[in-house]
Protein backbone atom coordinates (compact mmCIF):
# COMPACT_ATOMS: atom_id res chain seq x y z
CA UNK A 1 0.00 0.00 0.00
CA UNK A 2 1.43 3.41 -0.85
CA UNK A 3 1.03 6.35 1.48
CA UNK A 4 -1.98 7.76 -0.32
CA UNK A 5 -3.86 4.46 -0.14
CA UNK A 6 -2.79 4.01 3.47
CA UNK A 7 -4.32 7.35 4.39
CA UNK A 8 -7.41 6.90 2.19
CA UNK A 9 -8.19 3.43 3.54
CA UNK A 10 -7.51 4.67 7.07
CA UNK A 11 -10.03 7.47 6.69
CA UNK A 12 -12.62 5.18 5.13
CA UNK A 13 -12.22 2.84 8.08
CA UNK A 14 -12.56 5.80 10.44
CA UNK A 15 -15.73 6.88 8.67
CA UNK A 16 -17.22 3.40 8.93
CA UNK A 17 -16.27 2.86 12.53
CA UNK A 18 -17.46 6.26 13.71
CA UNK A 19 -20.78 5.58 11.98
CA UNK A 20 -21.10 2.39 14.02
CA UNK A 21 -20.11 4.18 17.20
CA UNK A 22 -22.48 7.08 16.74
CA UNK A 23 -25.44 4.96 15.62
CA UNK A 24 -24.85 2.25 18.19
CA UNK A 25 -23.91 4.64 20.97
CA UNK A 26 -27.15 6.56 20.77
CA UNK A 27 -29.43 3.62 20.26
CA UNK A 28 -29.32 2.71 23.91
CA UNK A 29 -30.31 5.41 26.33
CA UNK A 30 -28.08 4.30 29.23
CA UNK A 31 -25.44 6.85 28.18
CA UNK A 32 -27.64 9.56 29.71
CA UNK A 33 -26.97 8.14 33.14
CA UNK A 34 -23.27 7.43 32.69
CA UNK A 35 -22.22 10.43 30.75
CA UNK A 36 -24.45 13.24 31.92
CA UNK A 37 -26.08 12.50 35.25
CA UNK A 38 -23.10 10.85 36.95
CA UNK A 39 -20.59 13.54 35.94
CA UNK A 40 -23.04 16.17 37.15
CA UNK A 41 -23.40 14.45 40.50
CA UNK A 42 -19.63 14.19 40.77
CA UNK A 43 -19.27 17.87 39.98
CA UNK A 44 -21.98 18.74 42.46
CA UNK A 45 -20.27 16.92 45.30
CA UNK A 46 -16.98 18.72 44.67
CA UNK A 47 -18.65 22.08 44.19
CA UNK A 48 -20.46 21.87 47.51
CA UNK A 49 -17.28 20.82 49.27
CA UNK A 50 -15.51 23.86 47.85
CA UNK A 51 -18.35 26.15 48.82
CA UNK A 52 -18.31 24.89 52.38
CA UNK A 53 -14.57 25.58 52.46
CA UNK A 54 -15.07 29.07 51.02
CA UNK A 55 -12.71 28.26 48.15
CA UNK A 56 -12.19 30.95 45.47
CA UNK A 57 -15.24 31.11 43.19
CA UNK A 58 -13.25 30.33 40.00
CA UNK A 59 -12.65 26.85 41.41
CA UNK A 60 -16.20 26.05 40.46
CA UNK A 61 -15.49 26.73 36.82
CA UNK A 62 -12.41 24.54 37.17
CA UNK A 63 -14.42 21.64 38.38
CA UNK A 64 -17.02 21.90 35.66
CA UNK A 65 -14.42 22.02 32.90
CA UNK A 66 -12.53 19.19 34.55
CA UNK A 67 -15.65 17.06 34.71
CA UNK A 68 -16.42 17.69 31.05
CA UNK A 69 -12.86 16.93 29.92
CA UNK A 70 -12.75 13.85 32.03
CA UNK A 71 -15.47 12.27 29.93
CA UNK A 72 -13.22 12.65 26.88
CA UNK A 73 -10.47 10.95 28.76
CA UNK A 74 -12.72 8.06 29.76
CA UNK A 75 -13.75 7.84 26.17
CA UNK A 76 -10.15 7.23 25.13
CA UNK A 77 -9.32 5.03 28.08
CA UNK A 78 -12.37 2.77 27.98
CA UNK A 79 -13.87 3.24 24.56
CA UNK A 80 -10.93 3.49 22.22
CA UNK A 81 -8.46 1.62 24.39
CA UNK A 82 -10.64 -1.43 24.64
CA UNK A 83 -11.67 -1.45 20.97
CA UNK A 84 -9.33 -4.15 19.69
CA UNK A 85 -9.97 -6.27 22.73
CA UNK A 86 -13.72 -6.15 22.24
CA UNK A 87 -13.48 -6.66 18.51
CA UNK A 88 -11.51 -9.78 19.27
CA UNK A 89 -14.04 -10.96 21.83
CA UNK A 90 -16.84 -10.48 19.32
CA UNK A 91 -14.88 -12.43 16.72
CA UNK A 92 -14.46 -9.40 14.45
CA UNK A 93 -10.75 -8.83 14.65
CA UNK A 94 -9.66 -11.37 12.05
CA UNK A 95 -12.15 -10.00 9.57
CA UNK A 96 -11.02 -6.45 10.29
CA UNK A 97 -7.37 -7.34 9.76
CA UNK A 98 -7.99 -9.34 6.60
CA UNK A 99 -9.90 -6.38 5.15
CA UNK A 100 -6.61 -4.60 4.69
CA UNK A 101 -7.96 -1.45 6.33
CA UNK A 102 -5.28 0.05 8.58
CA UNK A 103 -6.06 -0.37 12.26
CA UNK A 104 -5.20 3.24 13.06
CA UNK A 105 -8.23 4.20 10.96
CA UNK A 106 -10.50 1.89 12.83
CA UNK A 107 -9.31 3.32 16.12
CA UNK A 108 -9.60 6.85 14.78
CA UNK A 109 -13.23 6.12 13.95
CA UNK A 110 -13.74 4.81 17.43
CA UNK A 111 -12.18 7.94 18.89
CA UNK A 112 -14.00 10.40 16.62
CA UNK A 113 -17.35 8.69 17.00
CA UNK A 114 -16.83 8.58 20.73
CA UNK A 115 -15.75 12.21 20.85
CA UNK A 116 -18.79 13.23 18.86
CA UNK A 117 -21.06 11.43 21.29
CA UNK A 118 -19.09 12.75 24.23
CA UNK A 119 -19.05 16.31 22.90
CA UNK A 120 -22.82 16.50 22.98
CA UNK A 121 -22.83 15.15 26.49
CA UNK A 122 -19.90 17.22 27.71
CA UNK A 123 -21.61 20.32 26.35
CA UNK A 124 -24.74 19.47 28.28
CA UNK A 125 -22.68 18.91 31.41
CA UNK A 126 -21.12 22.36 30.98
CA UNK A 127 -24.37 24.12 30.24
CA UNK A 128 -26.28 22.50 33.07
CA UNK A 129 -23.29 23.00 35.37
CA UNK A 130 -22.97 26.66 34.55
CA UNK A 131 -26.67 27.15 35.08
CA UNK A 132 -26.93 25.30 38.39
CA UNK A 133 -23.62 26.30 39.96
CA UNK A 134 -23.38 29.79 38.50
CA UNK A 135 -19.89 29.45 37.10
CA UNK A 136 -18.66 32.10 34.72
CA UNK A 137 -16.30 31.76 31.74
CA UNK A 138 -14.55 34.24 29.53
CA UNK A 139 -16.02 33.85 26.01
CA UNK A 140 -13.37 36.05 24.36
CA UNK A 141 -10.70 33.38 24.67
CA UNK A 142 -12.90 30.58 23.40
CA UNK A 143 -10.91 30.13 20.14
CA UNK A 144 -7.68 29.48 22.05
CA UNK A 145 -9.48 27.06 24.31
CA UNK A 146 -10.88 25.21 21.32
CA UNK A 147 -7.48 24.89 19.65
CA UNK A 148 -5.95 23.55 22.84
CA UNK A 149 -8.88 21.19 23.19
CA UNK A 150 -8.30 19.68 19.74
CA UNK A 151 -4.56 19.41 20.28
CA UNK A 152 -5.20 17.62 23.54
CA UNK A 153 -7.63 15.29 21.77
CA UNK A 154 -5.04 14.51 19.09
CA UNK A 155 -2.49 13.65 21.76
CA UNK A 156 -5.02 11.51 23.61
CA UNK A 157 -5.91 9.66 20.40
CA UNK A 158 -2.23 8.92 19.80
CA UNK A 159 -1.92 7.63 23.33
CA UNK A 160 -5.03 5.54 22.77
CA UNK A 161 -3.33 3.68 19.89
CA UNK A 162 -0.78 2.25 22.28
CA UNK A 163 -3.41 1.56 24.94
CA UNK A 164 -5.46 -0.40 22.42
CA UNK A 165 -2.54 -2.68 21.58
CA UNK A 166 -1.59 -3.09 25.23
CA UNK A 167 -5.13 -4.04 26.23
CA UNK A 168 -5.25 -6.59 23.46
CA UNK A 169 -1.94 -8.18 24.33
CA UNK A 170 -2.41 -8.23 28.08
CA UNK A 171 -6.17 -8.16 28.19
CA UNK A 172 -6.95 -9.04 31.80
CA UNK A 173 -3.97 -7.42 33.44
CA UNK A 174 -4.35 -4.48 31.06
CA UNK A 175 -7.83 -3.84 32.37
CA UNK A 176 -6.71 -4.03 35.94
CA UNK A 177 -3.81 -1.67 35.31
CA UNK A 178 -6.05 0.94 33.74
CA UNK A 179 -8.54 0.65 36.55
CA UNK A 180 -5.74 1.17 39.04
CA UNK A 181 -4.39 4.07 37.02
CA UNK A 182 -7.62 5.94 36.55
CA UNK A 183 -7.74 7.45 40.06
CA UNK A 184 -4.13 8.69 40.08
CA UNK A 185 -4.67 10.10 36.60
CA UNK A 186 -7.72 12.04 37.72
CA UNK A 187 -5.65 13.30 40.61
CA UNK A 188 -2.58 14.21 38.62
CA UNK A 189 -4.40 15.82 35.71
CA UNK A 190 -5.97 18.19 38.16
CA UNK A 191 -9.56 17.42 37.60
CA UNK A 192 -10.73 19.20 40.75
CA UNK A 193 -8.16 21.95 41.19
CA UNK A 194 -5.55 23.93 39.30
CA UNK A 195 -2.22 22.20 38.77
CA UNK A 196 -0.49 25.11 40.42
CA UNK A 197 -1.61 23.92 43.85
CA UNK A 198 0.78 20.97 43.42
CA UNK A 199 4.43 21.08 44.45
CA UNK A 200 6.71 21.70 41.45
CA UNK A 201 7.89 18.08 41.21
CA UNK A 202 4.34 16.83 40.83
CA UNK A 203 3.57 19.53 38.29
CA UNK A 204 6.43 18.26 36.15
CA UNK A 205 5.12 14.71 36.32
CA UNK A 206 1.63 15.90 35.47
CA UNK A 207 2.84 17.79 32.44
CA UNK A 208 4.01 14.53 30.87
CA UNK A 209 0.36 13.69 30.53
CA UNK A 210 -1.49 15.41 27.67
CA UNK A 211 -4.79 15.65 29.47
CA UNK A 212 -3.24 17.64 32.28
CA UNK A 213 -1.65 20.13 29.89
CA UNK A 214 -4.81 20.43 27.84
CA UNK A 215 -7.00 20.94 30.85
CA UNK A 216 -4.62 23.49 32.33
CA UNK A 217 -4.51 25.42 29.04
CA UNK A 218 -8.27 25.40 28.63
CA UNK A 219 -8.78 26.64 32.17
CA UNK A 220 -6.19 29.37 31.87
CA UNK A 221 -7.85 30.66 28.73
CA UNK A 222 -11.48 30.32 29.75
CA UNK A 223 -11.15 31.32 33.37
CA UNK A 224 -8.15 33.64 33.54
CA UNK A 225 -8.50 35.00 30.01
CA UNK A 226 -4.97 34.06 28.90
CA UNK A 227 -4.40 34.19 25.13
CA UNK A 228 -2.13 32.71 22.42
CA UNK A 229 1.06 34.32 23.64
CA UNK A 230 1.08 32.94 27.12
CA UNK A 231 -0.31 29.55 26.10
CA UNK A 232 2.15 28.86 23.27
CA UNK A 233 4.19 26.47 25.41
CA UNK A 234 1.08 24.44 26.14
CA UNK A 235 0.29 24.16 22.45
CA UNK A 236 3.80 23.26 21.38
CA UNK A 237 4.04 20.62 24.08
CA UNK A 238 0.76 19.08 22.95
CA UNK A 239 1.84 18.97 19.30
CA UNK A 240 5.14 17.34 20.19
CA UNK A 241 3.38 14.83 22.40
CA UNK A 242 0.83 14.01 19.72
CA UNK A 243 3.57 13.31 17.19
CA UNK A 244 5.72 11.20 19.48
CA UNK A 245 2.76 9.24 20.81
CA UNK A 246 1.47 8.68 17.27
CA UNK A 247 4.77 7.11 16.23
CA UNK A 248 4.82 4.90 19.28
CA UNK A 249 1.16 4.00 18.75
CA UNK A 250 1.59 2.99 15.10
CA UNK A 251 4.62 0.96 16.04
CA UNK A 252 2.66 -0.77 18.81
CA UNK A 253 -0.10 -1.73 16.37
CA UNK A 254 2.41 -3.21 13.97
CA UNK A 255 4.17 -5.04 16.75
CA UNK A 256 0.86 -6.44 17.98
CA UNK A 257 -0.16 -7.66 14.52
CA UNK A 258 3.18 -9.36 13.93
CA UNK A 259 3.03 -11.03 17.29
CA UNK A 260 -0.48 -12.24 16.51
CA UNK A 261 0.61 -13.70 13.18
CA UNK A 262 3.62 -15.40 14.70
CA UNK A 263 1.92 -16.92 17.70
CA UNK A 264 -1.40 -17.56 16.05
CA UNK A 265 -3.53 -16.71 19.06
CA UNK A 266 -3.90 -13.05 19.90
CA UNK A 267 -6.63 -12.24 17.41
CA UNK A 268 -8.70 -15.36 17.94
CA UNK A 269 -11.70 -15.17 20.18
CA UNK A 270 -11.35 -18.54 21.83
CA UNK A 271 -7.65 -18.34 22.55
Amino acid at each position, binding site marked *: *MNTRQYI*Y*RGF*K*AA*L*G*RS*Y*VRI*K*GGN*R*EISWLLWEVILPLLMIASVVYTYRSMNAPSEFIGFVILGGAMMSFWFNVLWGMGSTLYWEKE*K*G*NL*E*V*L*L*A*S*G*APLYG*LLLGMALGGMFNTAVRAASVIIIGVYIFEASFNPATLPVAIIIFFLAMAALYSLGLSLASIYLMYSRSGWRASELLSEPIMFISGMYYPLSVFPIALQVVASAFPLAIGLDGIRRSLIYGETFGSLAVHMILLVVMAIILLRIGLWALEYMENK*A*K*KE*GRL*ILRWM
Partner: protein
Amino acid sequence: MEKETAIFTRELTRIFERGGEKIRALDNVNIEVPEGIIYGLLGPNGAGKTTLIRILATLLLPSSGFAYVGGYDVVREPDKVRSVINLVSGGERAGYGILTVKENLWFYSQLYGLGIREGWEKIEQLAELLDMKDFLNVRLNRISTGMAQKYSLARGLLNDPDILFLDEPTLGLDVGAARAIRKIIKAWVHQNQNKTILLTTHYMAEAEELCDLISIIHEGRIIATGSPTELKHRVSKEVIYKIEVKNISEEDMGGLKKEEAGIVGLSTSYDAYSNVLSIRLVMDTSDVSHIIRYIEKLNGRIISISKVEPTLEDVFLKLVGVGLSEY
Protein backbone atom coordinates in the same frame (compact mmCIF):
# COMPACT_ATOMS: atom_id res chain seq x y z
CA MET B 1 4.65 -18.07 -11.48
CA GLU B 2 1.94 -18.26 -14.14
CA LYS B 3 -0.95 -15.89 -14.03
CA GLU B 4 -3.70 -18.51 -14.10
CA THR B 5 -2.77 -19.90 -10.72
CA ALA B 6 -4.91 -18.37 -7.99
CA ILE B 7 -3.26 -20.08 -5.04
CA PHE B 8 0.05 -21.80 -4.86
CA THR B 9 1.96 -23.23 -1.91
CA ARG B 10 5.32 -24.96 -1.60
CA GLU B 11 6.39 -27.06 1.37
CA LEU B 12 4.13 -24.97 3.57
CA THR B 13 4.59 -25.92 7.20
CA ARG B 14 3.19 -24.48 10.40
CA ILE B 15 4.18 -25.59 13.85
CA PHE B 16 2.33 -24.44 16.96
CA GLU B 17 3.74 -24.68 20.42
CA ARG B 18 1.41 -25.44 23.22
CA GLY B 19 2.66 -26.15 26.72
CA GLY B 20 6.13 -27.04 25.47
CA GLU B 21 4.65 -29.48 22.99
CA LYS B 22 5.06 -28.97 19.26
CA ILE B 23 2.05 -29.46 17.02
CA ARG B 24 2.66 -29.81 13.31
CA ALA B 25 -0.61 -28.32 12.09
CA LEU B 26 0.61 -28.21 8.47
CA ASP B 27 3.34 -30.45 7.15
CA ASN B 28 4.89 -29.62 3.78
CA VAL B 29 1.68 -28.72 2.04
CA ASN B 30 1.84 -28.25 -1.72
CA ILE B 31 -1.31 -27.12 -3.45
CA GLU B 32 -1.97 -25.40 -6.73
CA VAL B 33 -5.39 -23.92 -7.35
CA PRO B 34 -6.16 -22.78 -10.88
CA GLU B 35 -8.23 -19.65 -11.35
CA GLY B 36 -12.00 -19.97 -11.79
CA ILE B 37 -12.75 -23.09 -9.79
CA ILE B 38 -14.09 -24.21 -6.44
CA TYR B 39 -11.34 -25.98 -4.60
CA GLY B 40 -12.16 -28.06 -1.55
CA LEU B 41 -10.06 -28.99 1.44
CA LEU B 42 -11.64 -32.05 2.94
CA GLY B 43 -10.48 -33.39 6.25
CA PRO B 44 -11.46 -34.32 9.79
CA ASN B 45 -11.28 -32.08 12.85
CA GLY B 46 -7.79 -30.85 13.54
CA ALA B 47 -6.52 -31.77 10.07
CA GLY B 48 -5.14 -28.27 9.53
CA LYS B 49 -7.79 -26.78 7.24
CA THR B 50 -8.33 -23.56 9.17
CA THR B 51 -4.60 -23.15 9.70
CA LEU B 52 -4.04 -23.30 5.94
CA ILE B 53 -6.80 -20.77 5.29
CA ARG B 54 -5.45 -18.41 7.94
CA ILE B 55 -1.99 -18.49 6.38
CA LEU B 56 -3.40 -17.86 2.90
CA ALA B 57 -5.53 -15.01 4.25
CA THR B 58 -2.42 -13.39 5.81
CA LEU B 59 -3.61 -13.86 9.38
CA LEU B 60 -0.91 -16.31 10.35
CA LEU B 61 2.73 -16.74 9.36
CA PRO B 62 4.02 -20.10 8.12
CA SER B 63 6.88 -21.69 10.04
CA SER B 64 8.53 -22.55 6.73
CA GLY B 65 7.73 -22.86 3.04
CA PHE B 66 5.90 -20.25 1.04
CA ALA B 67 2.51 -19.38 -0.37
CA TYR B 68 1.26 -17.12 -3.14
CA VAL B 69 -2.29 -15.84 -3.40
CA GLY B 70 -3.35 -13.97 -6.51
CA GLY B 71 0.32 -13.90 -7.45
CA TYR B 72 1.39 -12.21 -4.21
CA ASP B 73 3.54 -13.58 -1.43
CA VAL B 74 1.43 -13.93 1.73
CA VAL B 75 4.37 -13.14 4.00
CA ARG B 76 5.99 -10.27 2.15
CA GLU B 77 2.99 -8.67 0.44
CA PRO B 78 0.08 -9.09 2.85
CA ASP B 79 -1.55 -5.79 1.81
CA LYS B 80 -1.68 -6.84 -1.83
CA VAL B 81 -3.06 -10.23 -0.91
CA ARG B 82 -5.71 -8.58 1.27
CA SER B 83 -6.81 -6.41 -1.63
CA VAL B 84 -7.83 -9.43 -3.73
CA ILE B 85 -9.28 -11.77 -1.12
CA ASN B 86 -12.04 -12.12 1.40
CA LEU B 87 -12.66 -14.63 4.13
CA VAL B 88 -15.85 -16.02 5.64
CA SER B 89 -16.01 -18.61 8.40
CA GLY B 90 -19.00 -20.79 9.14
CA GLY B 91 -20.85 -19.72 12.26
CA GLU B 92 -19.23 -16.28 12.38
CA ARG B 93 -21.33 -13.19 12.88
CA ALA B 94 -18.72 -10.50 12.58
CA GLY B 95 -20.28 -7.11 13.20
CA TYR B 96 -22.21 -5.20 15.82
CA GLY B 97 -25.34 -6.73 17.30
CA ILE B 98 -26.97 -3.41 18.01
CA LEU B 99 -26.89 -2.33 14.35
CA THR B 100 -29.01 -3.74 11.55
CA VAL B 101 -27.72 -6.12 8.89
CA LYS B 102 -27.71 -3.29 6.38
CA GLU B 103 -25.85 -0.87 8.65
CA ASN B 104 -23.26 -3.52 9.43
CA LEU B 105 -22.73 -4.24 5.75
CA TRP B 106 -22.26 -0.55 5.08
CA PHE B 107 -19.63 -0.38 7.80
CA TYR B 108 -17.76 -3.20 6.09
CA SER B 109 -18.14 -1.58 2.68
CA GLN B 110 -16.27 1.43 4.02
CA LEU B 111 -13.64 -0.82 5.54
CA TYR B 112 -13.11 -2.35 2.11
CA GLY B 113 -12.70 1.13 0.68
CA LEU B 114 -15.94 1.45 -1.31
CA GLY B 115 -17.45 4.90 -1.91
CA ILE B 116 -20.17 6.11 0.43
CA ARG B 117 -23.00 5.69 -2.08
CA GLU B 118 -21.32 2.78 -3.79
CA GLY B 119 -21.53 0.93 -0.48
CA TRP B 120 -25.31 1.29 -0.17
CA GLU B 121 -25.77 0.28 -3.81
CA LYS B 122 -23.60 -2.79 -3.46
CA ILE B 123 -25.65 -3.87 -0.45
CA GLU B 124 -28.86 -3.68 -2.50
CA GLN B 125 -27.27 -5.80 -5.23
CA LEU B 126 -26.05 -8.42 -2.82
CA ALA B 127 -29.38 -8.50 -0.98
CA GLU B 128 -30.96 -9.36 -4.29
CA LEU B 129 -28.38 -12.02 -5.13
CA LEU B 130 -28.51 -13.66 -1.71
CA ASP B 131 -32.24 -13.23 -1.17
CA MET B 132 -31.87 -11.32 2.08
CA LYS B 133 -34.13 -8.32 1.53
CA ASP B 134 -36.57 -9.33 4.24
CA PHE B 135 -34.01 -9.09 7.04
CA LEU B 136 -31.83 -6.21 5.89
CA ASN B 137 -33.32 -3.96 8.54
CA VAL B 138 -33.24 -6.43 11.38
CA ARG B 139 -30.63 -6.05 14.09
CA LEU B 140 -27.70 -8.42 13.75
CA ASN B 141 -28.29 -9.95 17.18
CA ARG B 142 -31.84 -10.89 16.23
CA ILE B 143 -31.28 -12.91 13.04
CA SER B 144 -31.20 -16.70 12.73
CA THR B 145 -28.10 -18.78 12.04
CA GLY B 146 -29.10 -19.28 8.42
CA MET B 147 -29.61 -15.54 7.93
CA ALA B 148 -26.33 -14.84 9.67
CA GLN B 149 -24.52 -17.08 7.23
CA LYS B 150 -26.03 -15.21 4.29
CA TYR B 151 -25.06 -11.95 5.94
CA SER B 152 -21.49 -13.17 6.35
CA LEU B 153 -21.37 -14.31 2.77
CA ALA B 154 -22.64 -10.91 1.66
CA ARG B 155 -19.86 -9.33 3.68
CA GLY B 156 -17.41 -11.64 1.95
CA LEU B 157 -18.59 -10.49 -1.46
CA LEU B 158 -18.67 -6.75 -0.70
CA ASN B 159 -15.19 -6.08 -2.00
CA ASP B 160 -15.75 -8.25 -5.06
CA PRO B 161 -12.77 -10.48 -4.23
CA ASP B 162 -10.96 -12.53 -6.85
CA ILE B 163 -10.34 -15.25 -4.31
CA LEU B 164 -12.79 -16.12 -1.58
CA PHE B 165 -11.91 -18.32 1.38
CA LEU B 166 -14.80 -20.14 3.00
CA ASP B 167 -14.05 -22.04 6.19
CA GLU B 168 -16.84 -24.59 6.75
CA PRO B 169 -19.47 -22.43 5.09
CA THR B 170 -22.43 -24.60 6.06
CA LEU B 171 -21.36 -25.42 9.60
CA GLY B 172 -24.35 -25.78 11.90
CA LEU B 173 -26.95 -24.95 9.27
CA ASP B 174 -30.11 -26.97 8.70
CA VAL B 175 -30.55 -28.79 5.41
CA GLY B 176 -32.48 -26.02 3.69
CA ALA B 177 -30.15 -23.21 4.73
CA ALA B 178 -27.09 -25.24 3.78
CA ARG B 179 -28.55 -25.91 0.35
CA ALA B 180 -29.21 -22.20 -0.17
CA ILE B 181 -25.64 -21.34 0.74
CA ARG B 182 -24.23 -24.00 -1.59
CA LYS B 183 -26.36 -22.69 -4.43
CA ILE B 184 -25.05 -19.17 -3.94
CA ILE B 185 -21.45 -20.34 -3.79
CA LYS B 186 -21.80 -22.29 -7.02
CA ALA B 187 -23.57 -19.49 -8.84
CA TRP B 188 -20.98 -16.92 -7.86
CA VAL B 189 -18.09 -18.91 -9.30
CA HIS B 190 -19.89 -20.04 -12.40
CA GLN B 191 -21.49 -16.72 -13.33
CA ASN B 192 -18.33 -14.67 -12.90
CA GLN B 193 -15.12 -15.13 -14.77
CA ASN B 194 -11.91 -15.93 -12.98
CA LYS B 195 -13.38 -16.03 -9.50
CA THR B 196 -11.88 -18.69 -7.27
CA ILE B 197 -13.16 -20.22 -4.06
CA LEU B 198 -11.16 -22.27 -1.62
CA LEU B 199 -13.46 -23.90 0.88
CA THR B 200 -12.97 -26.31 3.74
CA THR B 201 -15.46 -28.87 4.85
CA HIS B 202 -15.70 -32.14 6.62
CA TYR B 203 -18.88 -33.08 4.80
CA MET B 204 -18.07 -35.50 1.99
CA ALA B 205 -21.27 -34.86 0.12
CA GLU B 206 -20.73 -31.13 0.20
CA ALA B 207 -17.22 -31.46 -1.22
CA GLU B 208 -18.49 -33.79 -3.90
CA GLU B 209 -21.34 -31.52 -4.89
CA LEU B 210 -19.46 -28.24 -4.93
CA CYS B 211 -15.85 -28.77 -5.75
CA ASP B 212 -14.08 -29.04 -9.07
CA LEU B 213 -10.94 -30.12 -7.33
CA ILE B 214 -10.49 -31.60 -3.86
CA SER B 215 -7.52 -32.15 -1.61
CA ILE B 216 -7.94 -34.57 1.23
CA ILE B 217 -5.99 -33.33 4.23
CA HIS B 218 -5.13 -35.44 7.23
CA GLU B 219 -2.85 -34.58 10.17
CA GLY B 220 -1.45 -31.58 8.34
CA ARG B 221 -0.60 -33.46 5.17
CA ILE B 222 -2.31 -33.48 1.80
CA ILE B 223 -2.85 -37.16 1.13
CA ALA B 224 -4.71 -36.99 -2.19
CA THR B 225 -5.79 -34.42 -4.73
CA GLY B 226 -8.09 -34.69 -7.72
CA SER B 227 -11.56 -34.09 -9.07
CA PRO B 228 -14.32 -35.99 -7.25
CA THR B 229 -14.38 -38.53 -10.10
CA GLU B 230 -10.62 -38.96 -10.09
CA LEU B 231 -10.58 -39.41 -6.36
CA LYS B 232 -13.32 -42.01 -6.49
CA HIS B 233 -11.32 -43.79 -9.14
CA ARG B 234 -8.79 -44.52 -6.43
CA VAL B 235 -11.14 -47.10 -4.99
CA SER B 236 -12.20 -48.53 -8.35
CA LYS B 237 -10.30 -51.76 -7.70
CA GLU B 238 -11.86 -52.17 -4.29
CA VAL B 239 -15.28 -53.51 -3.45
CA ILE B 240 -17.44 -51.54 -1.09
CA TYR B 241 -19.95 -53.18 1.19
CA LYS B 242 -22.52 -51.81 3.49
CA ILE B 243 -23.55 -54.22 6.23
CA GLU B 244 -26.29 -53.60 8.78
CA VAL B 245 -26.11 -55.59 12.00
CA LYS B 246 -27.92 -55.82 15.31
CA ASN B 247 -26.62 -56.98 18.69
CA ILE B 248 -23.05 -55.96 18.08
CA SER B 249 -21.05 -52.98 19.21
CA GLU B 250 -18.60 -50.70 17.45
CA GLU B 251 -15.83 -52.03 19.72
CA ASP B 252 -16.58 -55.60 18.65
CA MET B 253 -16.00 -54.63 15.05
CA GLY B 254 -12.74 -52.96 16.01
CA GLY B 255 -11.46 -56.41 16.96
CA LEU B 256 -11.35 -57.55 13.33
CA LYS B 257 -7.78 -58.11 12.13
CA LYS B 258 -7.71 -55.81 9.14
CA GLU B 259 -4.74 -57.23 7.23
CA GLU B 260 -5.93 -60.80 7.44
CA ALA B 261 -9.45 -60.03 6.44
CA GLY B 262 -8.66 -58.15 3.26
CA ILE B 263 -10.09 -54.96 4.70
CA VAL B 264 -8.65 -51.74 3.32
CA GLY B 265 -10.83 -49.50 5.44
CA LEU B 266 -13.68 -49.88 7.86
CA SER B 267 -16.05 -47.40 9.45
CA THR B 268 -19.06 -47.91 11.67
CA SER B 269 -21.96 -45.80 12.74
CA TYR B 270 -24.45 -46.76 15.37
CA ASP B 271 -28.07 -45.69 15.37
CA ALA B 272 -29.32 -45.88 18.93
CA TYR B 273 -32.96 -45.49 17.92
CA SER B 274 -33.14 -48.59 15.74
CA ASN B 275 -30.26 -50.30 17.56
CA VAL B 276 -28.60 -50.97 14.20
CA LEU B 277 -24.88 -50.76 13.53
CA SER B 278 -24.00 -49.78 9.96
CA ILE B 279 -20.63 -51.00 8.79
CA ARG B 280 -18.93 -49.64 5.72
CA LEU B 281 -16.17 -51.82 4.34
CA VAL B 282 -13.66 -51.09 1.65
CA MET B 283 -12.31 -54.50 0.62
CA ASP B 284 -9.60 -55.60 -1.78
CA THR B 285 -11.53 -58.83 -2.34
CA SER B 286 -15.20 -59.45 -2.93
CA ASP B 287 -15.16 -62.35 -0.50
CA VAL B 288 -16.72 -61.32 2.82
CA SER B 289 -17.67 -64.74 4.12
CA HIS B 290 -15.07 -64.60 6.89
CA ILE B 291 -16.46 -61.26 8.04
CA ILE B 292 -19.94 -62.70 8.20
CA ARG B 293 -18.59 -65.58 10.26
CA TYR B 294 -16.84 -63.16 12.61
CA ILE B 295 -20.08 -61.27 13.19
CA GLU B 296 -22.07 -64.45 13.76
CA LYS B 297 -19.52 -65.80 16.19
CA LEU B 298 -20.16 -62.69 18.32
CA ASN B 299 -23.91 -63.37 18.13
CA GLY B 300 -24.50 -60.41 15.84
CA ARG B 301 -27.60 -60.58 13.68
CA ILE B 302 -27.04 -59.48 10.09
CA ILE B 303 -29.93 -57.51 8.64
CA SER B 304 -28.57 -56.67 5.22
CA ILE B 305 -25.46 -56.82 3.10
CA SER B 306 -25.12 -54.81 -0.07
CA LYS B 307 -22.44 -53.74 -2.50
CA VAL B 308 -22.52 -49.96 -2.92
CA GLU B 309 -21.10 -47.33 -5.25
CA PRO B 310 -17.92 -45.66 -3.98
CA THR B 311 -18.08 -42.18 -2.48
CA LEU B 312 -15.37 -39.86 -1.22
CA GLU B 313 -15.93 -41.38 2.20
CA ASP B 314 -14.48 -44.63 0.85
CA VAL B 315 -11.49 -42.85 -0.60
CA PHE B 316 -10.82 -41.39 2.82
CA LEU B 317 -11.40 -44.82 4.38
CA LYS B 318 -8.87 -46.38 2.06
CA LEU B 319 -6.26 -43.68 2.53
CA VAL B 320 -6.56 -43.31 6.27
CA GLY B 321 -8.05 -46.64 7.33
CA VAL B 322 -10.87 -45.15 9.38
CA GLY B 323 -13.92 -43.10 8.48
CA LEU B 324 -14.05 -39.32 8.41
CA SER B 325 -17.08 -39.27 10.68
CA GLU B 326 -15.11 -41.08 13.37
CA TYR B 327 -13.19 -37.95 14.33
